[in-house]
């Protein structure tokens, strides 16, 4: 959950320094996947060796695998539990049932070794620091992730909460989540209201992502904006607002409608005013013995400022002005074939031309000639093979294609901000991530996973000097634990 991945100090937004020579890895990834699937170790876990307990085990006495396909990814039962406001509905949900010493808190952090490589990184010229060069950079070493402190549960029957103070790996804290939820209003599971800072009701939750590396630890689709765009919005970022959410008793039918402050979850209303809306709905159905399949759709309608009213010589932002619109819309399918599951997600994004070009709406020169609203399409295919509750294999491929550039194409130049882009595929992105998580033990007070992952990302023609593709890669070995 929470900002665990991005608090590692790795890339948050991907605007231009990404790339890929991924064909070889695309080739070997399935082989890696198949080899691990067939390995004796992967299938051996004996029945008596399982000691799985959930984060809420102290309250409910259920194995953690009951709610998690593989921690932290939820399964259908866990999603229902979450949608019920962290309640099982068996008359034991209120805190009054707990021992007075019970405190629903957990800490998560990931010591790791990782290697990061960028083939065309922008660096200062050692001989002339005012000048920039392109150079391959490779760094590696032992490191820490950010820290999540997770507290959640019920304040009373049908009043639930989540509070997640979260720190980056330097120890700087912020509130990743802080909300209270009123559940089952009018005795209906279709009426639940949540207020505070929370993750959007994304079926593919980035806060429960199974990959942790710099390049693979986020969904590119959720954070992509065109190169040169001034919008900071990310669909995977927790937002501030109010959400009306509902679901059928067995959670097969779900919907969510949220009214959000247009600040991308940042506190103190930095953008001054403006509200966004997020709508999503999904329906699950059984497909014989294959499992529970789910299909859904979502749309986000937002606004973002293009300049600010300031005071103190620009040191303080009073209000975000020149607000322009943007949107994200997509479809998602979650398909189960017994132990094998695939999530497919298609998303279309678009922004106002002022946001896309990074030009203030009050710029006296207005938009440059040929400027248009940038638009793009993207897709994600993420597959898992859950060998058993203690071992999961992960593979994800994402691609994003610009369908309309914000600036006119000038193939004789590299990207010139506010003027032109070098080609129609400028900024297109491919990302491949694969890895596994092995949980050697589980019990009621702690979780632990040995995590191994490789991720590679290529972005077209965004090298800062040569205008060539940029390829970035991560190799990550971590010890992910929660207590």
């Amino acid at each position, binding site marked *: 959950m929470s900002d665990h991945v991005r608090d590692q100090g790795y890339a948050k937004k991907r605007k231009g320094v990404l790339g890929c020579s991924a064909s070889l890895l695309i080739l070997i990834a*399935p*082989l890696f*996947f*198949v080899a691990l*699937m*067939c390995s004796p170790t992967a*299938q051996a876990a004996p*029945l*008596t060796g*399982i*000691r*799985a*307990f959930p984060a809420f*085990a102290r309250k*409910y*006495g*259920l*194995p953690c*695998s*009951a709610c998690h396909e593989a921690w932290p990814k939820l399964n*259908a*039962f866990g*999603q*229902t539990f979450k949608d019920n406001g962290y309640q*099982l*509905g*068996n*008359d*034991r949900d209120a805190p009054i049932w707990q021992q007075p010493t019970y405190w629903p808190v957990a800490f998560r952090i990931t010591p790791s070794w990782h290697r990061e490589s960028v083939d065309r990184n922008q660096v200062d010229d050692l001989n002339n620091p005012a000048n920039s060069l392109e150079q391959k950079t490779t760094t590696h070493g032992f490191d820490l992730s950010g820290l999540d402190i997770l507290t959640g549960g019920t304040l009373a029957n049908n009043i639930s909460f989540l509070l997640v103070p979260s720190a980056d790996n330097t120890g700087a804290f912020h509130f990743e989540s802080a909300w209270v939820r009123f559940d089952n209003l009018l005795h209906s599971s279709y009426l639940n209201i949540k207020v505070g800072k929370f993750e959007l009701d994304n079926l593919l939750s980035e806060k429960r992502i199974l990959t942790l590396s710099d390049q693979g630890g986020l969904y590119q689709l959720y954070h992509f904006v065109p190169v040169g765009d001034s919008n900071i919005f990310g669909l995977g970022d927790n937002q501030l607002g109010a959400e009306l959410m509902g679901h059928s*008793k*067995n*959670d097969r039918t779900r919907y969510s409608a949220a009214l959000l402050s247009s600040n991308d979850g940042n506190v103190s209303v930095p953008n001054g005013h403006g509200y966004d809306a997020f709508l999503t709905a999904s329906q699950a159905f*059984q497909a*014989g*013995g294959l*499992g*529970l399949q789910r299909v859904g759709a979502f749309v986000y309608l937002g606004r973002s400022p293009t300049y600010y009213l300031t005071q103190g010589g620009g040191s303080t932002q009073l209000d975000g002005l020149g607000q322009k619109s943007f949107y994200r819309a997509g479809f998602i399918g979650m398909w189960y*074939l*017994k*132990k*094998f599951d695939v999530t497919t997600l298609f998303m279309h994004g678009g922004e106002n031309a002022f946001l896309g070009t990074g030009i203030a709406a009050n710029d006296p020169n207005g938009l440059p000639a040929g400027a248009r609203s940038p638009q793009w399409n993207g897709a994600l295919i993420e597959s898992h*093979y859950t*060998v*058993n*509750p203690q071992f999961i294999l992960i593979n994800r491929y994402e691609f994003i294609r610009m369908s309309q550039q914000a600036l006119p194409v000038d193939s004789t130049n590299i990207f010139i901000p506010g003027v032109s882009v070098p080609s129609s595929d400028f900024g297109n992105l491919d990302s491949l991530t694969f890895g596994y998580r092995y949980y050697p033990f589980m*019990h*009621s007070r702690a979780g632990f996973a040995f995590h191994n992952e490789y991720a590679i990302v290529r972005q077209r023609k965004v090298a800062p000097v040569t205008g060539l593709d940029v390829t970035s890669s991560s190799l990550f070995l971590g010890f992910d634990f929660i207590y």
Partner: protein
Amino acid sequence: MKTNFYKLLFAIAFLAGFVNLPGAGAQEAQVGKLTGHPDQGKQLYRRYCIGCHGPRGDGAGENAPYIDPKPRNFTQATFKCRSTPTGTLPLDSDLYNSIGRGFDNSNMPSWAPLTDQDRINLVAFIKTFSPRWKNDKAGAPITIPNETPVTVPSIQHGHDLFQKLECWKCHGPEGRGDGPSASTLTDSNDQPIRPYNFAEGSRFKCGATNQDIYRIFMTGVDGTPMPSFADVIQPNDAWDLVHFLRTLQVNREGPERALLKSSGTKLQPIQPSSGGGR
């Protein structure tokens, strides 16, 4: 060439996904058109149930010491919620419904979010813990006659039966689970057990309908002190008792309580010292 190579990779991955899956075993559990397979149920049991019910199904999971009431011991093949006579094995559908319904006032949640196939697979695996399932057959399900009308005389007769059959000794004069015998009750494993508190709950362990209450009278709750009344009371009497018990559910607005209120009828308090009468 490249396309063929990808096809080959896909085929290998697809097949590799299936070589790990158990083949269709013998039919071990059946509910309607659903057939449960114990080998697939075993994997689900490991995921969902093992923490409480334990790897051997004996109710000695790691969480068991902290749970009250204790998890079911499947090796005894004794189940509370059945549609079959006392002492007999339940139907597969009884276990299937129990998994989907969960048990109020216990740590057993509703597993309705699981697919139907998953639940019947779990039933099939649970049946592997006791040899009784190989040696015995499930009992014949009891017949539940049509419910009699809810009337004041029916409720009053149920009140009298509650007194006469000494239900109050465990469940208490007001159905609050505080009868004089309540503190002494144990289940078949010598674990303390509390009688049902009608005043607190709005649902019953084995279902929420009047038919479910009727069924409990006639089948008993095996493994607990709650006996079967199948040989003691007639069906009409059982329905009268159902109607009276509904009036004890002070947190539930039902036709029984509404009828008492609208008719101005006040039932006399149960007299613990007397054997029967109004």
